[in-house]
C-alpha cells in the first residue's frame, strides 16, 4: 500500500513535504513495532495459558484426542427411533431391565390414563424456574433502578450504595446461593429460583438504571413545574419513556435465564439440567440425544418468540449488544 513507498517516488518533493513524509513514516514504523511487540506478548500469554490448562486437565489434549471419536462412537443410539421413544417415554424393544433402556417408569401420571413424558415435565420445571425468576428479578431491579440513577436521586450516598448492591448481586456466583439454599431447604427448584432471581436483580438493575439515566428530562421538568411529587414524576414522566426498553431487556434476560436455570439444574437445582447431566454421565445415548433435541428446540423457540415480541414492542433495534453487559 501507499506507505511502503520508496524514496525514488518522492524525489521531486519540496523540503517541507519531505519533513512531513519523514514524520509520517516514523509514526508508521513506531506503530508497527508496537503491534509486533503486543502480538508477541499476546502469543506468549496464550501459549502459557494453554500449557497451564493442559497440565491442569485430568486428561491431556493430545493423549485424549484419538479417543475423542471413540467416545462419540459409543454415543450412538441403537436406532434413531430410540431417541423418539426416550423423548416420549415409550417402551423400548431393547429393554433388558437396566435403566439405560427403561423409559417408561419415569412417566409423570396426571390422570390414570394420561401421562406427561418425564423430559417434558422436567423441561417445564426449568422453564418455570426461568420465568418465575425473571419476574421476581425484574420486579426487584425495577424497584431498585430509580434509586441508582443520577437524574432522579440527588443523594450521592444512596446512588453509590444501590449501585454497589447491584454490582455484588451481579458478580456473586449463583452456585453459591443455590448451594447454600440447597443445604438449608434441601435440593430443589426453589434454591435455583432464588439464586437466578438474585443474579437477575443485579444484571437487570444495571441495564435499567442506564436506561433511566438516558431518559429525556423535559417531561419531568414539566411535571415538577406543576408541583408533582417524586413518585408522580417517576410514574408519569420517566416510566412511559423507559418501559419499552425495560420490557425488551427483561425478555432478553428471559432467554439468558432459561440457559442459567438449566445450568443451575445440573448442579443440583432440579429440572432438565439435572436429568441431562445424569444421562450423559451414565452413557445413556438415546436419552441424552432426546434431551439435547428438546433443549435446542426450546432455546430456539424462546429466542425467536422473545425476538418477535421485542420487535413488536420497540421496533428494529439490536439488543444483542446488551448480552455481554448483562
Amino acid at each position, binding site marked *: *500500500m501507499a506507505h511502503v513507498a520508496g524514496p525514488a517516488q518522492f524525489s521531486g518533493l519540496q523540503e517541507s513535504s519531505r519533513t512531513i513524509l519523514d514524520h509520517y513514516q516514523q509514526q508508521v514504523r513506531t506503530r508497527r513495532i508496537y503491534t509486533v511487540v503486543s502480538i508477541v506478548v499476546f502469543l506468549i500469554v*496464550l501459549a502459557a*495459558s*494453554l500449557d*497451564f*490448562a*493442559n497440565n*491442569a*486437565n*485430568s*486428561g491431556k*489434549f493430545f493423549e*485424549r484426542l484419538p*479417543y475423542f471419536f471413540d*467416545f462419540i462412537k459409543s454415543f450412538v443410539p441403537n436406532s434413531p427411533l430410540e431417541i423418539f421413544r426416550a423423548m416420549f417415554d415409550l417402551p423400548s424393544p431393547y429393554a433388558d431391565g437396566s435403566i439405560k433402556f427403561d423409559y417408561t417408569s419415569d412417566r409423570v401420571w396426571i390422570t390414570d390414563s394420561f401421562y406427561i413424558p418425564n423430559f417434558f415435565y422436567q423441561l417445564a420445571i426449568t422453564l*418455570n424456574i426461568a*420465568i*418465575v425468576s425473571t*419476574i421476581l428479578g425484574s420486579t426487584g431491579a425495577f424497584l431498585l433502578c430509580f434509586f441508582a440513577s443520577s437524574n432522579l436521586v440527588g443523594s450521592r450516598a444512596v446512588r453509590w450504595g444501590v449501585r454497589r448492591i447491584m*454490582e455484588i448481586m451481579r*458478580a*456473586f*456466583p*449463583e*452456585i*453459591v446461593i443455590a*448451594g*447454600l439454599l440447597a*443445604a*438449608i*431447604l*434441601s435440593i*430443589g*427448584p*426453589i434454591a435455583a429460583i432464588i439464586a437466578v432471581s438474585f443474579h437477575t436483580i443485579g444484571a437487570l438493575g444495571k441495564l435499567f438504571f442506564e436506561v433511566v439515566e438516558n431518559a429525556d428530562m423535559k417531561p419531568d421538568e414539566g411535571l415538577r413545574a406543576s*408541583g408533582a411529587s417524586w413518585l408522580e414524576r417517576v410514574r408519569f414522566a420517566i416510566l412511559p419513556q423507559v418501559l419499552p426498553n425495560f420490557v425488551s431487556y427483561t425478555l432478553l434476560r428471559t432467554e439468558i435465564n432459561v*440457559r*442459567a436455570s*438449566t*445450568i*443451575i439444574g*445440573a*448442579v443440583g437445582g432440579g429440572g432438565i*439440567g439435572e436429568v*441431562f*447431566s445424569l444421562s*450423559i*454421565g451414565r452413557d445413556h445415548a438415546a436419552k441424552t440425544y432426546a434431551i*439435547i433435541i428438546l*433443549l*435446542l428446540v426450546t*432455546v*430456539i423457540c424462546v*429466542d425467536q418468540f422473545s425476538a418477535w415480541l421485542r420487535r413488536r414492542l420497540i421496533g428494529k433495534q439490536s439488543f*444483542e*449488544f446488551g*448480552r*455481554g*453487559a*448483562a
Partner: protein
Amino acid sequence: MSNLAVNAADRERLLDAYPEAFHRSFMQRWGLAIAAVAVFVYLAFCFSFFNVIPTFVNGNWDRAGIYLQDWYSWRAQPRLRFQNGQVVPQWTSRRQYPEGAAIDWLKPASNGGYTVIFGNDDRLDVTPSQVDVYIDGKLYPVAIKGDRAILPAGAPARMVQDDNKVNVRFGFAGQAEIRSNQVYVQRRFLGWANFFFDTQSPFWGRSFTGVAGLMFFGERIDPAQSNASLALDNFLNNGSWQHGDILSKLMQTLVMAFVGTLFATLLAFPLAFVAARNITTSRPVNWGMKRLFDFLRSIDMLIWALFFTRAFGPGPLPGIAAIFFTDTGALGKVYSEALENVDDKQREGVKSVGAAPVIVQRYGVVPQVLPIFISQSLYFWESNTRSATVIGAVGAGGIGLKLLESMKTNADWDKVAYMVLLILLVVFVFDNLSNALRSRVMGKKGH
C-alpha cells in the same frame, strides 16, 4: 390549585384535537391491569407447583444460622472426655491448635478438671462428677449421676435438658452439650482460623510483626531456604485453607474464559465475513454460515461443557472448548451484523484504485468494524469470566468445582466465603480492565 373548569365548547375542541388521548382502545386502557393479573395468577400457580410453603416449613432453619455464622467466624470443638476420674480434651482432625498449645479459653484446673471460658461471666468448670455452669456470674451446677446429666432446679432458658444430656447455649460465643461421659464444647470466634499458617508451620500463632521479623531478620529455620520462601511455601500449602490449590483453580477459571473467548474471536472473525451478505454475495453460503452460528449458540454452554468433560476428563480444557463453541456462534452473529452495517463508500474507494479483494476488505472494512469487534469480544470476555465459574461446577474444573466440593461438606463455609471474595475481586478487576480497554478502543463516547 386552581379549579380547572372547562366549558362545553372547549371540551369539544379538545376532544377533536386529541382523539388519541380521549378514545383509547380496550387494550390501552386495561392491558396493564390484565397483564398484572395474569402474572399474579401465574406466580400463584408456581407457588403451589414448586411446593414453596412445605419446602420452607421443612427447611433446616436452625442449621442456616450456623452455616451463615461459619462464613465469618470459626469454631473450636473439643470433646472433654471423662477418663479414670480425669478430664481429657479430645480434638477432631479439624483441630485449630497444635499439640500441647496453651489455650487461653480452655485451661486445666488444679483438681484434674478443665475450665472453659465463654465470656467474662460465662464459663464451665468441668469435673467428671459435676459440671459447674456459670451464666452471667450465677452458678448452676449440673450433677452427673450414672448415665445421666441432671439439670439443676431454677436453671435459665439457655439451659435445656435433652433426654440424658444437658444443653447450654452461650449465644455467639458457643454452646456445650453435657453428657454423662463427656462435655462436647463448641467455642466460636470471629474471623478465619489459621488463615495464613496452619499448626504445622513454625510461623503459626505469631503476630504480624513477629512473622515479618522472622521472615526478614530471623535465623534460618530451614537451612535449605530463606525464611521468606519458607513462609510463602507454608502459606500456599496451608493444610486447612489450601491457598495454593485455590489460587491455581482460580487461575484455571480465568484461563478458561481468556482462551475460550480469544479462540472464539479468532474463528468468528473470518467466518463473519463469509456470513455477511454484503461481503460474500452467495446467498446459500450466507444462510448456511448463519445457521451454523445459530446452532453453536443455541446448544447450551452446559451441553458443550458436559460433552467435552466426557471426552477430555475434568479440567480447564472442556471449559475452554465449551466457551469456544458457544461464543463462536454468538460472536459470529454479532460480528456479521456489524459487517452488514458498514459504510460502503470506503470499500468503493479502495476498490476504485484497483485493489485486490482481500485488500479491499483489509482497508475498506476492517478499520470500520475493528473497534466494535474488539469491544464486543471484551464484553464476552467479561461475562465469560463469570460463567466459567458455573461451567466449572458441572465438571469443567476450576474454582467452580472447588466451590461445589467445599459446599457439599457443609463444614467449609469459611472457605466458600474466601473463594467468593476472590471471585468478586477478580470479576471487579476484570470488569474495570475490560472497561478501560474498551474506552481506549472505542474512544470516550462509549457504546
